[in-house]
């Protein structure tokens, strides 16, 4: 099979994949008696048409940046971390424990401490699968799936038996103290001119942007990042260069888990301000789609997270204001993952003839 030019591989393939997913989704909407044009209008309007919509879109974007980066870091080490969901949930537990531990004097201190808690718990949840992969060759995909379930059970236990305040019926932790409340976009000077203080997007968004830079710097500017990428490209060559497989697998997975865990500062600390069950709402899985779409580059991840933030918020609005059920967004998500991650060869094959004729003509 002829090779595509790099730009086509980086830009065209994801776009065509997205287009295919969109076309099929539109067909599905038609099939269930909906109106695709109306659906798109509602989605765009609901997600991007108002500061309120943006407030939610960017809120979801923040979460997806974290989980997308988590998948990205692991991917560069050749590891498929499918446990972002569990790590994000555990990150939430870390945030809750930190936030509830002290009457925090200022949000910035609380954010710092909670970030550490979130990252540590997320990393801890990735540590065992990573160790098993590095030392015993247990397939990391299966172990991380198992840890998603174990994590969910652990959260239920913690919420029901440990963190639920006496007298409360729903399995959720107590509200975090006011000192741990993160300013949302409506409370940040400057942004407050645009946003009301009812939007969930909060300072974590900037942490997420910083995380994009940090991951970029890690992967392309540090020794560890170099080793991670080298190992991910060629295990045998990495060993020749004296790179320790155990070290790379462990560190990359710990960082990956930490990033997934960090997502909790957005949803748990920034939005719900208490830990509830299933707080991550599948963002760990969406991270896979985000990383695939974003071609495993932090900038791409940022763009893809924005896209999925839009899909997510737009999908919620669509579920609200049209007869199309909100589950459509699960379908779209699945199709995007399918076309970008598993049927990419098909997309490339579809594109090859065009480039062949183009080259032939030239």
């Amino acid at each position: 099979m002829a090779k595509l030019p790099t730009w086509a591989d980086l830009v065209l393939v994801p776009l065509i994949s997205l287009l295919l997913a969109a076309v099929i989704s539109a067909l599905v909407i038609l099939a269930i008696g909906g109106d695709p044009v109306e659906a798109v209008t509602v989605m765009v309007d609901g997600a991007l048409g108002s500061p309120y919509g943006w407030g939610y879109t960017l809120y979801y974007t923040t979460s997806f940046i974290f989980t997308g980066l988590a998948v990205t870091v692991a991917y560069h080490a050749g590891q498929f971390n499918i446990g972002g969901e569990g790590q994000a949930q555990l990150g939430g537990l870390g945030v809750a424990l930190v936030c509830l531990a002290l009457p925090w004097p200022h949000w910035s201190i609380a954010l710092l401490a909670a970030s550490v808690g979130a990252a540590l718990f997320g990393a801890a949840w990735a540590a065992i699968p990573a160790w098993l992969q590095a030392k015993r060759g247990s397939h990391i995909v299966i172990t991380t799936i198992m840890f998603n379930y174990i994590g969910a059970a652990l959260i239920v236990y913690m919420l029901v038996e440990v963190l639920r305040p006496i007298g409360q019926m729903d399995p959720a932790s107590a509200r975090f103290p006011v000192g741990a409340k993160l300013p949302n976009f409506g409370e940040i000077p400057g942004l407050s001119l645009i946003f009301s203080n009812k939007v969930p997007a909060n300072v974590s968004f900037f942490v997420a942007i910083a995380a994009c830079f940090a991951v970029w710097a890690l992967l392309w500017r540090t020794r560890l990042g170099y080793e991670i990428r080298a190992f991910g490209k060629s295990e045998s060559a990495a060993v020749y260069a004296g790179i320790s497989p155990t070290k790379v697998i462990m560190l990359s997975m710990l960082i990956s888990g930490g990033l997934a865990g960090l997502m909790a500062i957005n949803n748990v600390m920034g939005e719900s301000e208490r830990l509830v069950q299933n707080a991550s709402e599948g963002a760990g899985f969406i991270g896979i789609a985000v990383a695939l779409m974003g071609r495993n580059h932090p900038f791409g991840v940022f763009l893809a997270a924005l896209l999925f933030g839009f899909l997510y918020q737009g999908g919620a609005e669509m579920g609200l204001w049209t007869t199309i059920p909100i589950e459509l967004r699960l379908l779209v998500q699945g199709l995007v993952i399918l076309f970008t991650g598993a049927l990419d060869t098909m997309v490339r094959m579809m594109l090859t003839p065009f480039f062949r004729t183009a080259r032939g003509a030239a």
Partner: protein
Amino acid sequence: DPALIFDLGGKFDKSFNEAAFNGAEKWVAETGGSYKQLEMQSEAQREQALRRFAESGANPIVMTGFAFGDVLNTVAPDYPDTKFVIIDMVVDQPNVRSVVFQEEQGSYLVGMMAAMASKTGTVGFVGGMDIPLIRKFECGYAQGVKAVNPEAKVVMNMTGTTPAAWNDPVKGSELTKAQIAQGADVIYAAAGSTGLGILQTVADEGILGIGVDSNQNYMHPGHMLTSMVKRVDLSVYEAFKDGPALETGLVVSGLKDEGVGYALDEYNADLITPEMKAAVDAAAEKIKAGEIAVHDYMADNTCPVE
């Protein structure tokens, strides 16, 4: 327009949420108005749902289920001009109407019926999520059973400790089978959608079941002894009818105002003997008159009978 938000069990649980839906539909039929509605898919969505409706100008906004309590407490002050109605939970905010029911009273009545209909002297209770609210159903039921037959045994199970317990028909069904094995021949299902599995199994196994919240007698005629109806539909209907001007504050609804009760219709007429009906109606009168005090589990989180 008013808005209605359903809890995790889903609009079509044929029970709690569906009762609310029916109330809203009744209002639509009568007034020709329209309303917005939304079903919760996950815990984390609640706040966005509430805010979205409030932002869009919906008023009043009615939500079913205690789980909204905490979120409403923070959202309500942000929208002082919007009226909220929460069912099954007390939220102390100036623009919130809290509707709670005296489920123990209705459960007491169906408990009496269960004891009278039971041939084995063992009756069952399958609850949804293990929380004081559901214990309250169970405690009222057990009191009713014991009032008729102090020797009777009440077998009790809860489906789970999380909201998933409202939507797990498989577990409901398995627990029912287990209770039947322990001799239960009348089973009271107070578990939202999970009840679908419970009552299905009750019908499959040929014993009697008791529905909850909505009148579920039609589901398995001949196998439904009765249903403990909780008029969530009325609460929703009234809230919608009152509109943005509705009075806020606490509303406690019980036998007295027919907020709870048991269902008697063509589907279970054959199963209820005149004696049973007489006994139960008499007890209802006594409860209304205060002569029988049915203990409310949530008052002190204990139950006087086992």
